[in-house]
């Protein structure tokens, strides 16, 4: 009997051991497969530690400019938090490995980066600003919220001097200042930029005899009606249009619609909400009409619904509100779509209004840092033109830096052209309010909730009134 138990223990240990070695083995073979795959061969992220990874310098990237001169920050270590971007995390790691290695060579500062997933990003940054764990430098959004949350000894640092050193506010698109600058003080250096376009399936367009992307809402409806197929009961079997809403999140699409009929979220001083207006109602009406009246767009309250995967599956011809990385997302996950993906600026109510909303996000320094000067060096380096162009290319994101956006990479690329056009004709998406992250919290913040309720059939006036009431209760 005792023997049997010993055997049991032995087996458990053996299993655990074989499991460990098994992991090791498959890890190795994973790396081997990677080199074969070729697509991101320079990214040796099969191995665990991010240090010591050498990225090939084959890509166009920031070259070392500094000589062998003294390195005043030798031995300093910084932590840098960033959210995940791009369609392949290993590319982001490789890019950061390269940029941090170059920076270390130049200054002697070691930057230890951590990539946080989006599902916990807001929570982590809020804790960082209010006395929880904080990095030295971080990739921020909702800057005003975070700036106002910050206290004497925690939170975001004012870095006007860095902005001056980098050429003042004209270095970045206006959206960059809107996001990073609060009452004349800069809390971060703008880097990524984000705007929304219409993504469409060129093959579907050809088959339906459509020659150009719609430019007004009427055209959008007309085109979508041509592309939509329904069964005998009127259920959509192939939708002409999809709001880029995952899990019933309509707020982002609606912000663009509001801009497209000349409406604004708030007044100019950001003291009052102004969407209880003709434009506000018109845009909400349009949001729900496309689903409930014209029957050209699926109701996507379903948590399993994702516009992008529907597009990949060939169930949808146009996505309203696609982002820069979406093309690669589609082609990587559904190679059969290669060559069929195109972009155009979003249509507007009459063709003359703003096309979409835009977001800019800054890199900020936290007051808790032990090495503010070194942190500033890193921010300046990371936000420099060369590095930003390199990062934009690697991560498929747009940039807030005017010169970077003027690069031929953005202006001549068929896919990105629509983005650079929209960037010049857009309005801010995030409101600079302390409580914005709550007002726009998904799924039950007042704004997403209002949009979802309207789509679900609630009367628009009531929905707006309820939303305003809830926002009042939260405060802004």
């Amino acid at each position, binding site marked *: 009997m005792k023997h049997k138990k010993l055997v049991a223990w032995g087996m458990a240990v053996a299993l655990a051991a074989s499991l460990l070695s098994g992991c090791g083995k498959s890890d190795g073979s994973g790396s081997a497969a990677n080199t074969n795959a070729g697509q991101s061969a320079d990214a040796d992220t099969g191995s665990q530690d991010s240090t010591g990874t050498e990225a090939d310098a084959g890509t166009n990237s920031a070259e070392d400019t500094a000589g062998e001169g003294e390195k005043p920050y030798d031995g300093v270590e910084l932590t840098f938090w960033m959210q995940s971007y791009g369609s392949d995390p290993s590319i982001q790691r490789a890019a950061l490995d390269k940029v941090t290695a170059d920076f270390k060579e130049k200054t002697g500062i070691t930057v230890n980066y951590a990539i946080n997933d989006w599902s916990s990003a807001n929570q982590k940054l809020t804790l960082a600003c209010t006395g929880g764990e904080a990095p030295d430098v971080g990739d921020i959004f909702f800057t005003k919220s975070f700036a*106002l949350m910050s206290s004497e000894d925690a939170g975001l640092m004012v870095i006007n001097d860095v902005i001056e050193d980098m050429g003042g506010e004209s270095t970045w698109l206006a959206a960059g200042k809107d996001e990073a600058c609060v009452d004349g003080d800069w809390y971060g250096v703008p880097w990524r930029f984000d705007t929304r376009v219409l993504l469409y399936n060129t093959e579907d367009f050809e088959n339906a005899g459509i020659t150009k992307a719609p430019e007004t809402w009427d055209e959008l409806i007309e085109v979508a009606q041509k592309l939509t197929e329904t*069964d005998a009961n009127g*259920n959509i079997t192939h939708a002409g249009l999809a709001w880029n809403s995952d899990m019933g999140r309509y707020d982002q699409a609606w912000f663009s619609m509001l801009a497209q009929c000349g409406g604004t979220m708030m007044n100019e001083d950001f003291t009052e909400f102004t969407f209880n207006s003709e434009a506000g109602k018109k845009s909400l009406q349009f949001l729900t009409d496309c689903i409930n009246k014209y029957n050209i767009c699926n109701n996507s309250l379903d948590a*399993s619904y994702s516009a992008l995967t529907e597009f990949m599956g060939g*169930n949808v011809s146009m996505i309203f509100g696609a982002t820069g990385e979406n093309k690669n997302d589609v082609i990587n996950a559904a190679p059969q779509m290669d060559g069929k993906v195109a972009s155009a600026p979003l249509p507007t109510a009459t063709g003359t209004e703003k096309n979409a909303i835009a977001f800019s996000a800054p890199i900020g320094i936290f007051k808790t840092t032990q090495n503010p000067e070194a942190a500033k060096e890193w921010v300046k380096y990371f936000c420099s033109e060369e590095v930003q162009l390199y990062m934009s290319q690697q991560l498929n994101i747009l940039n807030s830096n005017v010169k970077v956006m003027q690069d031929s990479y953005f202006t001549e690329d068929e896919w990105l052209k629509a983005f650079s056009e929209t960037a010049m004709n857009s309005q801010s998406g995030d409101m600079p309010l302390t409580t914005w992250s709550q007002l726009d*919290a998904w799924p*039950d913040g007042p704004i997403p909730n209002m949009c979802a309720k309207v789509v679900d059939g609630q009367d628009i006036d009531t929905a707006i009134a309820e939303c305003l009431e809830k926002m009042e209760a939260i405060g802004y």
Partner: protein
Amino acid sequence: MERSGKGKDVGREGGFWDRHTPFIMLLPAVLAVMIVSVYPTLRTVGMSFFDKSLLSRKEPFIGLANYAEAFGKTELWLYICNTLFFAIVSLILGVALAMYVAVKLIKPLPGKGFFRAMFLTPWVTPPLVASFTWRILFSENFSPINSILLRLGWIKTPISFLNSTDVFLGFLSVPLLMLVIINVWSIFPFLMVMFIAGLQTVPAELYEAATMDGAGKIKQFWKITVPCIRPVIAVSILLELIWQFNNFNISYMVTSGGPLGRTKLLAVEVYQQAFTNFRYGYASAVSVIMMLVAAIPAVLYVRSSVKELQ
């Protein structure tokens, strides 16, 4: 230290250390639980009387205002109904399925070990993995379930399992039922293990005698099996009921409470208030309400366990 002289407690002689060994043996576990579980809970209860939020530096004492706010919201009642329905129905279905399987897997037929091992897998599948997969299984256009039903001709258009916002009885929606199915899948292995273990202790002679007397299968189940393993059933049901009241993973990971709060459970509401809105005071109040909702089965559980001892 001993209350009664009755019984032969081992260990009264010996030196100081020897005498106090039983007490010392308690310490690591008890202290750990006190510090990491009891203390934070008391702090949370305390916090529920304050307007504590990450976004404001002031933390005024506001008495029961958080509770008043919570009960004033119609949503909270929806979440309470959701939680009760989710916990109770998934428990009933889970127990039924687990019992059905356990009774089969106690029989000495070939494949017993294989099936037991297979049915255990949902338990060791991280909830995130299970939730992602179930979400696809319940999607409209990428679900194999829909593919099969379409192919069989049972349906003409794919079903979207998680889409409907229509409610019955004021709260019950189709997506919530889908979450119950997922939850049954994930909780029944634990119940099955408990039941099999319990069934193994039932002496086979009882069944033989019953068969001699001509009792049918169903009668045997109710007259012999259930009474014999009643303690196991009671403990498993009560524990599982409490755990399911506190269930967070399925609702958060599969639907995030959507569409429009139809599948939101109390634990998710607490999480979102605390870690999305950073309203710790209010979140604490909701979590205290949550504890109170779970208190009825909880008190039953503690009482029955204590009674059994005496």
